[in-house]
């Protein structure tokens, strides 16, 4: 999240001398609400929520078998509700409050229960209420992304407990590291809209969960084709549309950077979708609808950390790199390694996030059309910082996620039994069917 350029120019009306002396001070001391920024951020918030429900729900539901379609949508829906409650109770405070002596690592609890966030409280040029709810939509989609990794076999109760713990000890601190005043942000790691916080975080935790919970019964010998790619394509299209709120909204203002973030989001997504499609066409002989949709999501993921920093050509490069890279990760590497990351949360979100986070350090360079490196920082140094951000997120995420899964396994058990898995989670866990045809 970058800070807005303050609008000190308005103060020039009072005379040049006054402006020089008092303008910057005034702007810092009394932030004012900008209705344009506020209107855009309320819209962006709705767009990001639209990514999870219905976008991601449909994207995932279409890729599972018909007997589990409802369970996946139910998980996304329940995560939306649960994360909302946790966010206003303590999540927002842990992520964005000042943590005092621990501020490098985690926020404090003085904003728990949204204390002090009133009608007149501002965060920059927008109400803090809008900032908090915008950030909440990120805390919703990140756990929801993980659903794809353990789809078709995890217990609903275990999923709820795991997500509660994960938001508390993984998402909130990592979010604080990067955006809340913690050590990664202070070090100069660039993550505009959540390459590390959201996508690497979700992708790595998803992979850990898929490996701890284990493969689906019969994987990979039994055929498990997607039950409705129509739903998946509709969901992918909704994700794409919603992502403008995610990336352009992360500027927290309606300005030139937000406008450019919108452009690069579109360009990277298109480039990645085509890259995946052509890779598959070359490798298999036919282009597929699932391939082009997967590529689009890979591009959306990869441009996320870069979206406020790079130009259109940098975005195209990031898009093509992620489309090809995520294709290799999801189609080739997963097969070779044998883990059952059912809907490729690792292959798309972690790999796309890593590609995007590192290339942000390259294409931020003004020479490559970006917004420009910080003064005195070389491209190599920035890439180094990006790698530190990526590695720190991965290491912390793996260790803590592993511990959390073991705790939940001990308390509730992580997965349904074999018969229940065969029967399908819709009937077994919810006493319902997705389709009564």
């Amino acid at each position, binding site marked *: 999240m970058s800070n807005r350029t303050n609008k000190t120019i308005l103060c020039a009306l009072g005379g040049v001398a006054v402006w020089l002396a008092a303008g910057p001070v005034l702007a810092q001391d009394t932030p004012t609400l900008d209705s344009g920024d506020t209107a855009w951020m309320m819209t962006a918030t709705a767009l990001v929520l639209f990514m999870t429900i219905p976008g991601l729900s449909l994207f995932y539901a279409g890729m599972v078998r018909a007997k589990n379609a409802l369970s996946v949508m139910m998980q996304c829906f329940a995560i939306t509700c649960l994360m909302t409650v946790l966010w206003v109770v303590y999540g927002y405070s842990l992520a964005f409050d000042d943590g005092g002596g621990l501020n490098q690592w985690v926020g404090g609890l003085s904003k728990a229960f949204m204390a002090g966030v009133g009608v007149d409280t501002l965060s920059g040029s927008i109400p803090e209420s809008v900032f908090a709810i915008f950030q909440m939509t990120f805390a919703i989609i990140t756990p929801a992304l993980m659903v794809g990794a353990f789809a078709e076999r995890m217990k609903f109760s275990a999923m709820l407990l795991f997500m509660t713990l994960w938001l508390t000890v993984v998402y909130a601190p990592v979010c604080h590291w990067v955006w809340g005043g913690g050590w990664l942000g202070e070090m100069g790691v660039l993550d505009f809209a959540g390459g590390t916080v959201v996508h690497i975080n979700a992708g790595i935790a998803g992979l850990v969960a898929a490996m701890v919970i284990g493969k689906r019964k019969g994987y990979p010998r039994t*055929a498990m*084709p997607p039950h409705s790619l129509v739903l998946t394509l509709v969901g992918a299209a909704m994700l794409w549309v919603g992502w403008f709120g995610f990336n352009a909204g992360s500027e927290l203002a309606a300005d030139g950077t937000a406008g450019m973030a919108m452009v690069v989001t579109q360009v990277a997504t298109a480039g990645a979708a085509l890259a995946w499609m052509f890779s598959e066409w070359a490798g*298999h002989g*036919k282009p597929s609808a699932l391939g082009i949709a*997967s590529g689009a999501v890979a591009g959306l993921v990869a441009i996320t950390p870069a979206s406020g920093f790079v130009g259109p050509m940098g975005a195209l490069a990031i898009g093509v790199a992620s489309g090809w890279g995520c294709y290799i990760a*999801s*189609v*080739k590497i*997963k097969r070779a390694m044998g883990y059952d990351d059912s809907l*490729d949360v690792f292959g798309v979100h972690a790999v796309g996030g890593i590609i995007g986070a590192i290339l942000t350090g390259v294409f931020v360079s003004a020479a490559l059309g970006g917004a420009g490196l910080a003064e005195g920082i070389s491209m190599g140094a920035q890439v180094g910082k990006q790698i530190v951000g990526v590695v720190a997120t991965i290491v912390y995420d793996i260790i803590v996620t592993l511990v959390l899964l073991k705790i939940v396994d001990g308390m509730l058990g992580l997965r349904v039994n074999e018969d229940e898995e065969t029967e399908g989670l819709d009937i077994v866990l919810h006493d319902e069917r997705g389709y009564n045809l």
Partner: protein
Amino acid sequence: MKLISAIIKPFKLDDVRDALAEIGVRGMTVTEVKGFGRQKGHTELYRGAEYAVDFLPKIKLEVAVEDDLVDQVIESISGAAKTDKIGDGKVFIVNLEQVYRIRTGETGNDAL
């Protein structure tokens, strides 16, 4: 009386229906079925996971007719369902012992 069952490609159903109506067939039963013959199945690929699909969707059409209509029915079905490509289907003919119309109680050819 004969019971004629034909397995045909789904998109040929309308042509076959029209051809049979033309020669005076007044009823038929159609079922969506799956199966394979010489055509075998095909493969599907989802993000690198390749699945062999052995059973292809086909239409099974059943018509009960008087003996002297049998040759015409076979001709109509095979003429309308033919694409000259593998997978066009087959026609099976079996003897029909008795037919009974539920509403009127008619039997035999009268019930057809």
